[in-house]
């Protein structure tokens, strides 16, 4: 998983970030922190939502240059909407991920943004796809990204179990985000979580002071 979203390479506002997605029994949770910074010195937004909706049941977590990520997700949203009108049915999650991958791969020289697409579709249920910086597309059950992800690889590897319940998965995601935000200076603020299931989409926001605390805090 690419972790080189360091601000020194990104011009303008960057989402030095922690993003995470995990599949549970019946759905998927995708979450992020909420800090956007310029050059790692100035926090330009404390409440940025990095989980962007690209279709009814498909969301995208962004990392890297904010301008690039917003431009790509806008283009992807429009593509997907057109695709879904043509097919007369909601798009598959893999279709959304492919659209992003195509944009990232074809413009890899100019773009500095990575994504994780999570959603639910009728064919394969809940899925997560990672689209890395250069345009690699990979399907995973649980994935983390952004500069803060380096601090929680151990936690995620140890604590993730397939087929968790929704509550267990949301708690797992909140803990992981809290741990990453606690160690990474360019991740912080509130935790944005989106829980996607067949029936509905729920946006949970955990404010900074309600995040779980660990032994040394």
């Amino acid at each position: 998983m690419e972790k080189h979203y360091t601000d020194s390479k990104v011009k303008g506002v960057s989402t030095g970030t922690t993003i995470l997605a995990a599949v549970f029994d019946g759905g998927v949770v995708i979450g992020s922190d909420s800090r956007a910074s310029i050059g790692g010195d100035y926090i330009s937004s404390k409440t940025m939502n990095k989980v962007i909706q690209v279709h009814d049941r498909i969301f995208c977590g962004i990392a890297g240059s904010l301008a690039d990520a917003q431009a790509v997700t806008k283009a992807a949203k429009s593509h997907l909407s057109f695709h879904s009108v043509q097919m007369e049915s909601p798009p598959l999650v893999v279709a959304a991920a492919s659209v992003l991958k195509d944009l990232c791969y074809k413009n890899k020289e100019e773009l500095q943004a990575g994504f994780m697409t999570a959603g639910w579709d009728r064919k394969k249920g809940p899925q997560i796809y990672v689209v890395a910086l250069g345009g690699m597309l990979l399907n995973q059950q649980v994935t983390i990204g952004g500069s803060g992800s380096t601090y929680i690889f151990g936690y995620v590897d140890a604590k993730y179990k397939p087929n968790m319940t929704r509550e267990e998965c949301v708690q797992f995601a909140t803990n992981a985000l809290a741990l990453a935000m606690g160690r990474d200076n360019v991740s912080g603020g509130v935790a944005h979580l989106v829980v996607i299931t067949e029936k509905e989409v729920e946006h949970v926001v955990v404010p900074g002071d309600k995040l779980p605390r660990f032994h040394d805090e």
Partner: protein
Amino acid sequence: MALSTVLETPGAGFNFENATRNAALEGLFEGGQTPKPLKTGTTIAGVVFKDGVVLGADTRATSSEVVADKMCEKIHFISPNMYCCGAGTAADTEKTTDLLSSNLSIFSLNSGRNPRVVMAVNILQDMLYRYHGQIGANLILGGVDCTGNHLYTVGPYGDVNKVPYLAMGSGDLAALGILEDGFKHNLELEEAKELVRSSVHAGIMSDLGSGNNIDICVITKQGVDYIRPYQESEYKDERKMKYKYRSGTTKVLTEKVVPLKLEVVQETVQKMDIA
């Protein structure tokens, strides 16, 4: 998109002709500096309140250490329900907001609808992203439309954020301190005006690039109240003398009239058909 622009959509990819020209010019100057673009070292701020949006700005435009304009207008008209504050390179903010305003009025005429704030933001984002940061415009766009009261920030690279309060420009850190302390949701009009005024004032006091007077623009469903200036600088000086000369100050000594012989070379008549 056809509704909003009269100009053709630009070709695919980025157009960096001007950037390469600038780089070439720098080489020509041989160690000297290319003329620096006029930057509006600035403090601009915006706040969403109960009935609309309040935007505020200082009025100083600087060219290195000299104040080039003491009464510069930094709150630009976009449409009857939207105004935009600009920080960064003065020419870029002027032209970008002008372009946006023209496109939106064409859209209004074509579609018969009032433009929404999100539409303006999307057009700005598309344009600034296309130029990859070469257009140095840091904008605060505020407006009221049928979906509510909105305040957005657009950065030079094309990143957009929707916020309830905001400050930008070289004096933004000082202004943000005041805003962070005083902001509450659903402020009343006078509270909101006072909050914006004091935040721009803090920017003026702490930043050399900001100064002179404070402009305030209040946008509500009922209309726009553009108060220019809202607060005048305490350091205004009185001009003791007028620089206007009475006619007759310079004596006319001789007068010579030379008629210009012009030949009609070509005459075309275009009939206007108003049937």
